[in-house]
């Protein structure tokens, strides 16, 4: 894989790897068990630039490329996927749409705090009746002089419990169907902005995934991104970028599972030899390693295309589909290699198994990704 990396990328990797190993790995199990969002680590991540990876330097970001971005997300996710998720969502579906579609005033207002990690971002699209079908959202924003009156019920908001700045999808023109959807930036603290209870999820438990409800919330019109009606366009652009991040996250989980699988297979003695000497285990390890490398290659390809400013939508969708499916399969095999111990929380693979599962669902299910890919191929 190093063939694709520059010296700079390798330094980024060794630096983020050192951070993940020393600061995240030791608390990964505890934050999962206690469903704790580790602010002490997030603050450090902010200072190191991990929360403004691709934001321009003049706005307080690190000004790095997409390849650096996926390296960072993979390494953090390898240590604790819930924190990789936080960074991925924050960088690519909260910060990115503001950068790509916001005006200078909006950049100055939101980007420095997000890029430095002083504030955490979230992406609010999903509603009880709108998931894969994003055009079915019911949230409304009715213009009233210099502000919108927003009513929204957003669910499964990643980072929801800690987010200050939410990229919120609303319907500004109820009669216009998909063309009536817009994006406004909602800030925590605005009267009527209410954060719900933390979801009791199977995996990603250190991430405060919550519902966010806006009741007659007055949001200034200057918080509208681009123009009214551009919501779906912004959403799709954000998700194209987001997919690369989630794919990198899935690779990180898969890599962690592969590593633990190999380690255990060499340690565990059955029939008087390490189980790694048994062919059935060897086959699993070979398949796992091959799948991880394939997924990683696809993620790198999507990121490289993005850096070259070439179309990458199909490749990002393929990478996300492949990496998330791989992550589930590899984590499953890692549990199998561990036998009964793999089903116990005492071993990391039990967490990887739970964490991997969601990557096939969020930021577009595998099924939606197949739709996107097929549409790209068939036209």
């Amino acid at each position, binding site marked *: 894989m*190093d063939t694709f990396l520059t010296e*700079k990328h*390798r*330094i980024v990797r060794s630096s983020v790897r050192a951070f993940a*190993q020393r600061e995240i790995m030791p608390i990964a199990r505890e934050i999962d068990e206690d469903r704790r969002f580790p602010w002490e680590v997030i603050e450090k991540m902010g200072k*190191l630039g991990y929360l403004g990876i691709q934001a321009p330097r003049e706005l307080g970001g690190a000004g790095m490329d997409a390849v*650096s971005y996926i390296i960072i997300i993979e390494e953090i996710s390898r240590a604790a996927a819930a924190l990789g998720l936080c960074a991925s969502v924050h960088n690519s579906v909260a910060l990115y749409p503001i950068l790509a579609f916001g005006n200078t005033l909006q950049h100055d207002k939101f980007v420095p705090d997000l890029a430095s990690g002083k504030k955490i971002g979230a992406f609010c699209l999903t509603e009880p009746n709108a998931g894969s079908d994003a055009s079915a959202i019911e949230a409304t924003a009715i213009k009233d002089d210099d502000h919108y009156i927003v009513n929204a019920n957003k669910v499964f908001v990643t980072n929801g419990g800690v987010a200050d700045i939410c990229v919120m999808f609303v319907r500004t023109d109820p009669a216009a169907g998909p063309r009536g959807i817009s994006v406004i930036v909602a800030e925590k603290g605005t009267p009527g902005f209410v954060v719900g209870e933390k979801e009791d999820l199977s995996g990603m438990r250190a991430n405060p995934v919550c519902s966010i409800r806006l009741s007659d919330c007055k949001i200034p019109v200057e918080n509208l991104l681009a123009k009214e009606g551009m919501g779906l366009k912004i959403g799709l652009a954000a998700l194209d970028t987001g997919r690369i991040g989630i794919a990198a996250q899935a690779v990180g989980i898969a890599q962690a599972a592969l590593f633990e699988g190999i380690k255990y297979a060499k340690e565990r003695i059955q029939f008087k030899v390490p189980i790694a000497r048994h062919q059935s285990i060897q086959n699993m390890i070979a398949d796992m390693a091959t799948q991880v490398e394939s997924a990683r290659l696809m993620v790198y390809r999507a990121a490289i295309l993005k850096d070259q400013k070439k179309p990458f939508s199909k490749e990002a969708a393929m990478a996300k589909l492949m990496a998330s499916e791989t992550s589930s399969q590899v984590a499953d095999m890692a549990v199998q290699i561990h036998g009964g111990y793999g089903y116990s929380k005492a071993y990391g693979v039990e967490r990887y198994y739970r964490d991997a599962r969601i990557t096939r669902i969020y930021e577009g299910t595998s099924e939606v990704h197949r739709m996107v890919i097929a549409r790209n191929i068939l036209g």
Partner: protein
Amino acid sequence: MGLNIIVCVKAVLEAGWGAKGAGKNTTLNLFDRPAIEMANELAQKYDGTITLVSMGPESACSALYEAMSMGPHQAVLACDSLFRESDTYATAKVLSAAIEKLSPFDLLLFGTRSSDSDTGHVGPQTAQMLSLPYISNVHDVMDLDMDKTTVERRADGFVEQFQITGSAAMSVVHGGTEYGYTGLYEIENTFDNKSIQRWDHTDLGLEAHEVGLSGSPTKIVALNPHKSKKQCQFIAGDVAQAAETLAQTLSQAGLVD
């Protein structure tokens, strides 16, 4: 003019997360980090410039960029195929030639040892060739002045304070500050604004016979992997009895009195 600090560093092979054949890329020798961190502190306090000096192949650049991302302003890589297979004496010869070329300087810092060959020779040998006083295992430079510099080192349960005049060389141990990670901004800045100068043996005024294998008084004749064997013994039975057996076993092995 501000302080001029030189830090000698080494590029070592990067280890993965224990995976076999993790890579042939280089990374900064872990034991050099304290020297760079101390140089950063001093450079900040006395408005100084930090120059890194290293000997190694082209692949060592990776480690030098990594090291510059921690703060140092520039780097020199003594790089020449003739330098291959240098022992610590020949390495010190090359480093001291590079350092002389960078003179005048106020302070020359080293890590205590390298994580790969672990000799700890290069610092003292280089200092000797440059006729500089050398203090090992320094953890703090209290104040720095060409007439009177005070440094502290820890040894054998004591803190020793030294005073030196003029330039000096020292190896640095970790002063107890938190492990510093390199931020993305610094990495990006390093690649945009800092550079590595490469010097070969002619740049350094060295003859071919002074460097590499021919300039090395010690030669490695064999290199074989050494495996230490671990033994694991399970002690069964109830807790009190197991504790008794454990104590006896450790005592018989001479591990406790």
